[in-house]
Every structure is written in structure tokens, then in C-alpha cells.
């Protein structure tokens, strides 16, 4: 089984967010870029499948600028991925998630695959566009948000559940396939030091920015971030003063109806 996992570097979840000087994005000064959240869980899922299906190989693919993108690919290799592809993004290139999906599709098309695993969204921009857009560009089916993904060797199909409103839908699907995973955290393994060292020596395949199709490099993407700001800080709750529980209830309901206007 040839497994691909699509990942991206995101700011460490502990990062204190600040807008940059122009107010159009995150101030990336001092930000630590990591493999975490949905992406780390996707790698874990791919590795679990590799262990369950004899003869499987996992390739991690990421699109982005140096050096952060190479670093998270090294993290994926240290965890047990067999190979990695870095799709280069020029540092000054303007991209949006749909454009990232185009670039990733280029790398996927160069690699035979049976299954592409991707998180349902990234932890930072939460767009959720890449998995479905890559599937369309590759002409394969996509399903999400997926939990409980298993390979049914007898039927030669994947089985999984979609965690949707009101319950969970069981699905059986043939390969090739793109699955967008529901979980952000599934107790992923940590890399052993010897594997971290070994991962440094594995050659990462590169798709250079110069080699990407002209329409990705020259045409502007369909959207751009005009402003990035923090929400107004929460000032703390207005506390309801009361003598009896009944009085507390009355005062709260009055506030919700007349001040917050959230109760008819």
C-alpha cells in the first residue's frame, strides 16, 4: 500500500499571537513552527496503517517555505515515514489554501498512491480546503470528517465512519482515496532520538518552485488576507449578586433577555 500524508508547518499551539506590523498576518518573529494537531494525527494514522498492512510505505508531503517545511518533514521521517517530498514555495509568493492544494497536487501526481491521508483542517487557518481540492485535482473520491479508518484486506477496501451531525455514517470505499481525518489529537507517538538522527540523513525529494506550473506561480491566488487582528479581550463575567437561587435565576434570565438579547 502506497500511503501519502499531507502536512504543513503551523505555529506551536503555545504561541502568543500578535499581528505583524502591517496588520495583514501573524507576526512570525520568534514563532516555532511544528508538526502538530491534525497534521501530527494524520501522520500517526498513516503509520498505524503502515504497521497494519504489510509492505506499505508512507510518504509525507508538505508545501511551504524553507526552512520550516523541511523541518516538519524531518519530524515526520523521525516518526517513521519512509520518504518525504518538499514542494517549495518562494518566500515572497502570495498563496492561499486553494493554491496550496494545487501545488500539493503536483507532487501527488508524481507519486503512485493508494491512499492520501490529510487532517480535516490545519490548526492555524482552519480552512479545510486542501484535502477535498486535492482529491478533485487528482480525480479520486474524498471523504471526511473520518474516524475509525481501517483496511479490510479481504474486500480490498477501506472502512471508516464519518462523524456527521446527528450520528455517524459507516462507509466502505475502494482505493485510490483521499480521507480527511476528524481528530486533532490521537495520542501520536514521539520520535526516538536515534530516529531523529537517522531522519537527518534521509534525502528529501524536492519539487522546486521554478518547476511548478506557470499558473501557480504567476496568476494571483483567488483570495488574500487583508487584515489579521485579535478579538477584543474578554473583560470577565458580569457576576449576578443574589440572596436566593430563585433571585439568581430571575436576574440571569432578565440579563439574557434584555441585555444580551439571546432569549426570546
Amino acid at each position: 500500500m502506497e500511503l501519502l500524508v499531507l502536512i504543513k508547518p503551523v505555529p506551536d499551539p503555545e504561541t502568543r499571537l500578535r499581528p505583524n506590523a502591517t496588520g495583514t498576518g501573524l507576526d512570525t518573529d520568534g514563532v516555532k513552527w511544528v508538526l502538530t494537531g491534525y497534521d501530527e494525527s494524520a501522520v500517526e494514522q498513516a503509520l498505524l496503517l503502515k504497521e497494519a498492512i504489510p509492505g506499505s510505505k508512507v510518504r509525507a508531503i508538505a508545501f511551504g517555505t524553507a526552512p520550516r517545511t523541511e523541518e516538519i518533514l524531518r519530524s515526520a521521517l523521525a516518526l517513521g515515514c519512509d520518504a518525504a517530498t518538499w514542494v517549495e514555495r518562494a518566500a515572497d509568493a502570495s498563496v492561499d489554501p486553494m493554491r496550496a492544494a494545487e501545488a500539493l497536487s503536483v507532487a501527488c501526481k508524481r507519486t503512485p498512491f493508494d491512499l492520501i491521508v490529510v487532517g480535516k483542517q490545519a490548526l492555524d487557518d482552519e480552512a479545510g480546503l486542501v484535502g477535498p481540492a486535492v482529491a478533485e485535482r487528482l480525480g479520486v473520491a474524498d471523504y471526511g470528517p473520518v474516524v475509525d479508518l481501517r483496511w479490510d484486506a479481504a474486500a480490498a477496501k477501506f472502512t471508516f465512519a464519518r462523524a456527521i451531525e446527528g450520528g455517524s455514517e459507516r462507509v466502505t470505499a475502494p482505493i485510490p482515496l483521499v480521507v480527511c481525518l476528524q481528530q486533532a489529537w490521537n495520542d501520536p507517538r514521539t520520535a526516538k532520538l536515534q530516529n531523529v538522527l537517522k531522519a537527518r540523513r534521509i534525502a528529501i525529494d524536492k519539487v522546486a518552485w521554478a518547476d511548478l506550473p506557470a499558473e501557480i506561480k504567476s496568476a494571483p491566488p483567488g483570495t488574500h488576507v487583508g487584515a489579521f487582528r485579535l478579538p477584543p479581550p474578554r473583560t470577565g463575567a458580569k457576576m449576578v449578586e443574589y440572596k436566593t437561587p430563585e433571585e439568581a435565576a430571575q436576574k440571569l434570565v432578565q440579563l439574557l433577555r434584555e441585555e444580551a438579547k439571546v432569549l426570546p
Partner: protein
Amino acid sequence: MSGPVLVLIERRNAAPVRPSLEALGVGRRIAGPPGTGAVVAILLGSGLEPAVAQVAELGADKVLTVTDARFDVFHAAVWSAAIAAIAEELEAMTILVAGTSNGRQLVGRLAARWGAAAVTGIADISRAADGTLSVVRPVFSGRALEEVKVDAPRVVLGLRPNAFPPPDPSDSKTPVEAHAVPELSALPALGTVTGFEPAQSGSGPDLSEATVVVSGGRGLKGPENFRLLEDLAASLGAAIGASRAVTDSGWKPASFQVGQTGRTVSPQLYIAVGISGAIQHVVGLISSRTIVAINSDPNAPIFKVADYGIVGDLFQIVPALTAEIRRVRGN
């Protein structure tokens, strides 16, 4: 501005889902007043009549029905092929999709198919005088906001549930038109839906769509005390959620969990009962419009993010609150 705004109406149990109705209201907002730009609602599947009757009262200029049982099950590949073909034919420039599980799976694929830009998780939207669409979307679990400008002529927009009001029903009926089923050749090999297991969340609305959510934490002291929250939820028509402490202890199934490892909710009103307010939980509810916290510990971090707080014994406060809501609502 040319071409209609297409609004996809998703159904569950034959009825349109609330987030899709919210999308209809947004459609009117960005198309302009009736007579300037057209809003076209589109429904796919079989047995569409009850949903069509409801949608036809909500101010669209046209309701398009595409009747084919192949759409009764959601496959992003099939839906995006059909909708892209229809959008092409109608010369639409904007497609609105609600942020349901299916909707979120559809946007990227539909945009790639139709050659459009895409933005998801939209909490606010406006159109400048020159026609440029500008949207606001929470990012980083609600810790920051992005304002995204749409530069492409075609765009698929994914909306956040509960961020926009659904339109009020009117007396005028929207004309309904049956649309031919687009040619669906060259589809990829698809999966087969083999079953559906309803969530054990009782009869209330689904967590991610509910306008009111009542959540319980460890302060409830045991699973049997969730009946207090069930009464409160019933008085409000609310969905029930839980903190990770509760689902980890097995008091409630994992599907109830609100937070970073569980569901993200954005209701009009979120009531946290006996929940301390660990950051892991807070990121799942921070986009709620109004947050109420009831906790015995005045120093509980939940009071820092809540709009209204009551320090006290939840076993006394919650029944009093349920009674008061029943009283004011006359039931």
C-alpha cells in the same frame, strides 16, 4: 454584478437544516435587495417537496430542484460535479454553502471543480461598492480573526453555523423550477454508505448547530446528575455538551465533548455548568455569542471568558433557572 447567487440547501430527515437557511439570508444580503441580484436556492435529492415548501417562503428569487436519488447520500465528488455544472449553466458567480460536516467537505472540491476561489468558516460578510466581497473568519481556534478579500470573479463561500440569522418566512411564494439532472459521467470510484448510527444525544438539536448549548463538567459530581442539565436544555430547546473530564470519566460518550479534542460550537448562548474552564475546553466554545458560567468556585477560570457568572451551588441554581425559563416562556 451579473449572475445569481446560488445557495445550496442541505436537508436532514426531509427538512432543510438551519445553517442552510442562514445561508439563504446571507445570499440576499450579498445579492442586494430583490430586483437587483437574484438569489437561487438549490436542492438535490429525492422527496424534496416538504423542504421546498419551507424554502419557498424565505425570500429567494427562485428555488431549483434537482431530483435524483443519487444525491440522497452525500458524496463530495458527486455533489460538486452536479453543482459546478449547474453554476456554469446559470452563470453564477457566488455559491454559498453552510458549514455542516457535508458542507465543509464540499467547498474545496466544488471550488476546484468550478475553477473558483474559496473561503470557509465565515462569521461575517460584506460587499464593497465595487462588488468586492470581504469576509471575517475566526482562526487559531477563535484566538485571532482574519479579514479575507475575494479577488477572483467566482467564489465558493463556506459559512459558520449560527453566525447569521435565518430569514423570516414571508407570504410571497418563491417560484419553484425543476432543473435537469446534470450529466454525471467520469466520476471517480465512490464509497458505499453501509449504515448510520444515531448519536446518543437524545432528542435535542445537534451540538454544532444548536442555538443554545448547555454543558456540564465535573462539578455535576456524577452521570446521574446530568438530568438537571437535561431539564434545563429541554426548557431552552438546547443541545447538551460536556467537558473532557466528563467524557474521559465515561459519564457521557465522546460525541458530547466540547473543546480542542472534541466539537467546536458557536451558539447564541452557551451555559457552562460546573466547568472550571480549562483552555482546552474554552477554545471549543469561545466563538459563542453569549457565555454563562455557573460554578461554586469564584476563582474558576471560566468566569474570565464568560459574559455572565453565577457563583453558587449548581444543584440549587440550575433547577431555579429551569423553573424561571419555563415561567417566562409560559410552559
